[in-house]
């Protein structure tokens, strides 16, 4: 299977060429177009209960679509908002994705849902996170550009900007500065991540967009 991320970074989409017998699993509604030779099979995402939990708490769809072909073909996968996409090669390791970030994966990747905790809820990252593990490629998307960082000591990420991180990353919620500067600088709560491990961040946040839009509605 050949996959390439095109139109980076603003309107990224995944162009996939499937050889006979290849499969790719994608988030429901991710397919933008495909060859007529490709078949689509819809299943509960990880089973009935997992599917419901992923929808309610993980910000993901209850269903996933498996695309396969007997003769070969191509398809384009996309995400609902403008922004970049990233491909991760899992080699038996695990990665946590923020709700709504998952786009597609190869069949060797296992999708699960993990409790993120109240601290992540306060950091506006959701109570649950998607856990991807196994062997194979995973594609995820973000609002705006995606940049990564190898964290060794401590690193500060503004709330709403963390997209994906390894389980080796420790997370604390803190204030950006003192009480006054935290609340009047507009930064408020921030996520303090500690390594070792890799994190992926998005250059825009939905909260920022919502706040900007609200400010212009009045």
């Amino acid at each position, binding site marked *: 299977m050949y996959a390439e991320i095109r139109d980076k970074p603003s309107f990224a989409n995944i162009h996939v060429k499937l050889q006979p017998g290849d499969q790719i699993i994608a988030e429901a509604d991710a397919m933008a177009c495909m060859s007529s030779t490709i078949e689509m099979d819809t299943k509960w995402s990880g089973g009935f209960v997992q599917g419901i939990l992923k929808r309610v708490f993980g910000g993901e769809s209850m269903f996933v679509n498996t695309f396969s072909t007997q003769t070969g073909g191509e398809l384009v996968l996309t995400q609902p908002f403008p922004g970049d996409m990233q491909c991760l*090669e*899992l*080699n*038996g*390791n*695990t990665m*946590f994705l923020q709700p709504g970030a998952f786009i597609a994966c190869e069949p060797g990747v296992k999708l699960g849902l993990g409790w993120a905790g*109240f*601290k992540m809820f306060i950091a506006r990252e959701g109570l649950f996170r998607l856990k991807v*593990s196994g*062997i194979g490629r995973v594609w995820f998307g973000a609002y705006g550009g995606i940049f990564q960082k*190898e964290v060794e000591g401590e690193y500060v990420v503004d709330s709403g900007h963390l997209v994906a*991180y*390894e*389980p*080796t*990353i*420790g*997370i*604390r919620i803190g204030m950006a500065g003192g009480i006054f500067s935290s609340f009047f600088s507009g930064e408020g709560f921030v996520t303090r991540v*500690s390594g*070792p491990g*890799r994190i992926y961040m998005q250059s825009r946040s939905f909260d920022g967009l919502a706040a900007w839009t609200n400010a212009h509605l009045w």
Partner: protein
Amino acid sequence: MYEHFSGGVFSDQLDGGRAGAEIVLTASGVSARVPDGQSFAIPYRECNVEICGYNGRMVFCRDSTRTVTIFCDDRKFARELSTASSGTLDAQLGDALQRVRSQSRRGTLVGVVSLAAILLFIVGCYFGVRYGAKGAVHSLPISVDRQLGKTAFSSMDLGGPEVKDPAVVAAIQKMVDQLKPHAAIDGLDFEIHVVDSEELNAFCLPGGVIVVYTGLIANAENPDQVAAVIGHEMSHATLRHGLERTSQSLGIWAAVSLLIGDATGLIAGGADLFQVAVVNSYSRDQEDAADKEGVRMLHEAGIDPASMAQFFKIMEAEHGDMPELFAWISTHPQHADRIASVTATVDALPERQYTPLDIDWQEVQSKVKDVAKTTKGDR
């Protein structure tokens, strides 16, 4: 037989720098085997242990050059590492666990304190707005009371036809005229409506719209008792209880808008409130305050304030007191309590000679009976 755990490895020798791995605690050290078959090992004597990660219990074993890190978040891993290393790593594990526990305790404490502070702030804001709105109503012009009263009155079902008999209306007007100069605030134009109904009651809407039921006139032994009830009801208007009560029943945003001077929500909410439950619209404290203010007005107007307690006795005989449970949740105080409270207030007043109201009460009551007969005949 060594125990196997699921974990991972960080190493520059791996494509992408990391991989999942099967970890084995051997007699000499920690070893990890990644899916492509590559193996890594760190002898216990070179092992630097840290505990952190997303769940605060992931154990990291790093070699002395920090080029290889083997990690695992299995609950049993730390204990098994201690056993397998024959205590070599116990000091490091103990320190790391101590740090994690202390961070966890500090995090929990900060979380609880922050949550309590946020809750306190929200509750403080809520009550601040509520009490602020209650206070703000007193700075509103009296025209707001009038608008509220008129809006509620225009859509209110009074429960009977209005009595236009000049003798009856003039008698009530005389009482109001005698009390009005002693009202707590100026600028209220009291408007009287006598309604033919057996209700032993009267009420005054915000702004001064007074409704007196003929049942009250028929049951009162003398005009002073009716004047006492009217004095009590006028007090609700002069003390602006209607606006206070409405401000308490407003939604939080209407209360906030009231604080910045917008009374439209107050008028709409108040009209609804008084339309639905005019008699029970006031709180117990407001009823007590109206009793005391009514007694003061009667005293100043030269009408015997003891008439108020006398009328409560009539009401007590008519309706009796409610059971304790209902009395507790009722907005109106028990008759017995009111009689005692009003009597105490009257006793505390300075000595004064009161003059009974110069109204032919028998004539007024007979007119009221005639109106009642006519109304029944019409039905």
